[in-house]
């Protein structure tokens, strides 16, 4: 869910959207927002699964340090989605989903 109105930050002025896909599903998300945030806004909380035990992981530190939120972005694995902004036609995949 996006926060459109806020007592301190006011109304959201950035209403420009871009198109992305996440695991093949098309989504329209707010331009310039970080990938992890754009996914959270659409209820997607799992970014990757661990290699050994296949446990889900989501955004944890939000500042590019913990690497829990890495995903496959435009074919490149291990992209830290909390500090990488969305771009038009970005193809995003849950890492190690299967």
């Amino acid at each position, binding site marked *: 869910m996006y926060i459109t109105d806020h007592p301190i*930050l006011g109304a959201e002025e950035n209403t420009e959207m871009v198109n992305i896909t996440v695991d093949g599903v098309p989504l329209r998300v707010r331009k310039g927002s970080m990938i992890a945030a754009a996914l*959270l*806004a659409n209820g997607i909380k*799992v970014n990757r699964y661990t290699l050994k035990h296949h446990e889900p992981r*989501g*955004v*944890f*530190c939000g*500042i590019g*340090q913990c690497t829990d939120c890495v995903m496959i972005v435009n074919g490149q694995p291990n992209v830290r989605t909390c500090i990488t902004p969305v771009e038009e036609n970005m193809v995003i995949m849950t890492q190690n989903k299967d």
Partner: protein
Amino acid sequence: MLVNRQVAIIGGGPAGLTAAIEAAKVGAQVLIIDENARPGGQLFKQIHKFFGSKAHNAGVRGMDIGLNLLKETEESGAETWLNSTVIGLYEGNRLSVVRTMEDGSKKIHTVQAEKILIATGSQENTINFDGWTIPGVMGAGCAQTMINVNRVMPGTKALMVGSGNVGLMVSYQMLQAGIDVLGVVEAAPKISGYNVHAAKICRAGVPFYLRHTIIHAEADESGTLCRATIAALDEKWNPSPNTEQSFDVNLVCIAAGLRPLAKLAQMYGVEHGFIPELGGWMPLHDENMETNIQGIYVAGDTAGVEEANTAMDEGRLAGISIAQSLQLLPDQEAEQCKAEIRARLESLRLGPFGERRLQAKNRIVKKEVQL
């Protein structure tokens, strides 16, 4: 590609930017390297008004201080590489940087600089309870970033673990964003942060669970958080049986303090010490923010976790010291500026919280830290 600069600053947060401004405005050739899309560090998530004196932006919101710093940095003539990560610091003051070029491609550059400031900030601590890795459990600062910077709800029903100032302020900011905060859990017998912050969330009806800790988090079939359980602590700080309480929440925030991010300083062999009051292991510095390795400086949370105002003054101190050692500032003028900043820093380290930090900082400068 090898790039030469007089000064390289790693991290464009409050400490890095103020250092860049001080050094660049007297003519130093400064390069700031930051791995984010926008500089400013953690200032933009701090939407609250700052405390302190007028000299320290009292009454100004952190995000507005951030905007001013960005403007001043631009005017200073300092160069900034964004989306660029320093991956190593090697002999001869050489930095390896994965730089994002204007066309979006990434290139590895080597930056050699006479003076290097490491201002990489800090990282949140966590608590390793059962279920702490479930998506929906995150750092309080992470939730704050999602809400205030990205304007996204990380959850709708939340439990805050930790009642220090971060825990209290983020709880309030979650309420402002429309998130239901079901409680603040604190292991100590009293609230750890300032009463003024605690009062705001008390008035909003948020209960405090003192002498309690989180013991368990559960996921639903989608693998994300749906429930958290807390328990009372006995006199040995162990959970007491039959005191469990569960909350249906999809967000658990952990506010368990921060620790300095100093991997690059470690890599370069900078002398470290363990200082619990400032977050644990950290690179040590002298009264000019220079480490035991000549030409390598630290400032801000990297040099001991405090807050944005102290980070900005430490950055200024480092920037002026760097300019002085590059002979861009006459000694007398530099010493006078530094004395003023040191006095300001001392005035920020007052009160029950600040005094411990002041004493710890004095131990560092007087080289009384156990290595």
